[in-house]
């Protein structure tokens, strides 16, 4: 056995491929003491992929091969996992997947299409923040545990939540006490001012935003009016751009709270 292992560095590509075929053909994935993990450093990526998928099919020791396989093989594995509705531990492979693959898997997990997936385990590797925001909103809406999602939820989403709370768009039973410690200072202030019944200045998303004052000019002149009109137009365009960007989050929030359009 040791003899075969010791020879691995000296085998040519054809011999290594033949050995890999024999390992794959063996029910216990072992040939003369050689296992997939022994072969992986010497094989081409294509052959490692083949070996990897063979181990996945056998539910064998595929985890050790992950650093050597291609992104395509990992994606195939995720597809297999999605098709089978789970059953394969793909979360531990997340660090090695490309961003798009992790995002796809996370989106399916949030949608409940792969019930066996540990959604929380994927969180650190999700690149699209809006997916996490949607998962958070969904958890809030369904009264599920959302605390573990909090560190990953965008400040933009938390701000929208704070706004919705202060505008009375949330269920009265909504527990803001669990969330305010994770918000930005301005949002915390807005919530406390709201709770104290004081006027708020925390909403910067709509018409409340005014162009800067032109203190050195006499108000009422045509120039100032034109400047204000131009600044308003620019501000409206900016607001529109921002709203386009946060549209998915806003729509999800509206789904929950049934609020009016804030624009």
């Amino acid at each position: 056995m040791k003899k075969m292992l010791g020879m691995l560095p000296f085998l040519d590509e054809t011999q290594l491929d033949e050995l890999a075929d024999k390992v794959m053909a063996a029910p216990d994935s072992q040939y003369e003491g050689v296992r997939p993990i022994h072969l992986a450093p010497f094989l081409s990526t294509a052959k490692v992929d083949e070996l990897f998928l063979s181990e996945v099919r056998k539910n064998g020791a595929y985890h050790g091969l992950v650093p050597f396989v291609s992104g395509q093989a990992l994606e195939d594995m995720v597809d297999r996992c999605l098709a089978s509705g789970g059953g394969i531990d793909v979360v531990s492979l997340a660090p090695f997947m490309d961003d798009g693959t992790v995002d796809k898997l996370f989106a399916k997990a949030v949608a409940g299409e792969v019930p066996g997936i540990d959604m929380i385990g994927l969180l650190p590797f999700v690149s699209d923040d809006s997916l996490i925001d949607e998962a958070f909103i969904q958890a809030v809406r369904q009264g599920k545990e959302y605390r573990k999602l909090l560190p990953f939820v965008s400040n933009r989403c938390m701000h929208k939540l704070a706004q919705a709370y202060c505008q009375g768009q949330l269920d009265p039973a909504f527990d803001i006490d669990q969330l305010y410690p994770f918000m930005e200072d301005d949002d915390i202030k807005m919530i406390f001012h709201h709770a104290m019944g004081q006027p708020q200045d925390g909403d910067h998303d709509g018409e409340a935003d005014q162009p800067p004052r032109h203190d050195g000019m006499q108000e009422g002149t045509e120039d100032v009016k034109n400047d204000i009109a131009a600044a308003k137009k620019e501000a409206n365009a900016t607001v529109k751009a921002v709203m386009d960007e946060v549209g998915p989050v806003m729509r999800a929030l509206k789904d929950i709270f049934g609020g009016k359009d804030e624009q």
Partner: protein
Amino acid sequence: MLDFKAIGEKIHQLRTSSGYSQDQIAEALFVSRQAVSRWELGQTLPSVDNLIELSRMFNVSFEEMLCLGTVPQVDPANIFAGHDRAFIVKDIVTGRLKVDLPAVLYQFSDAERMIVLKAVKQGQLEADRDALRVKLTPAEAEYMGQEVRR
């Protein structure tokens, strides 16, 4: 960005200087004495309503009670002591809380380690990569190393 520990110390300081016992505060706010104790230890925060009530009792603003605008202080020997873990991890990842990551890495759970390592890998969080490398598990090292090979 609330500092649970600082808020707890603030509540304790204001309560004692105002001459209230924990029992009196608990009775006034209809909470248990243990709840007041947990606030003062920085384990939990009062609800919004209770915090407003406390600020009225102590005649200070809620901003002062919540220590808004201050940078959280952590004990390097136990960065999570008196703080919410998720809160600490988030503040480290966003760069608000500065820590010597290689020195405190052992204090994170496996999942938390991957969270901060991802932030380092993406350049979101600064850390001494050489010092960090020797603290990593083989899988973590592989994860961090992928970026170099690509």
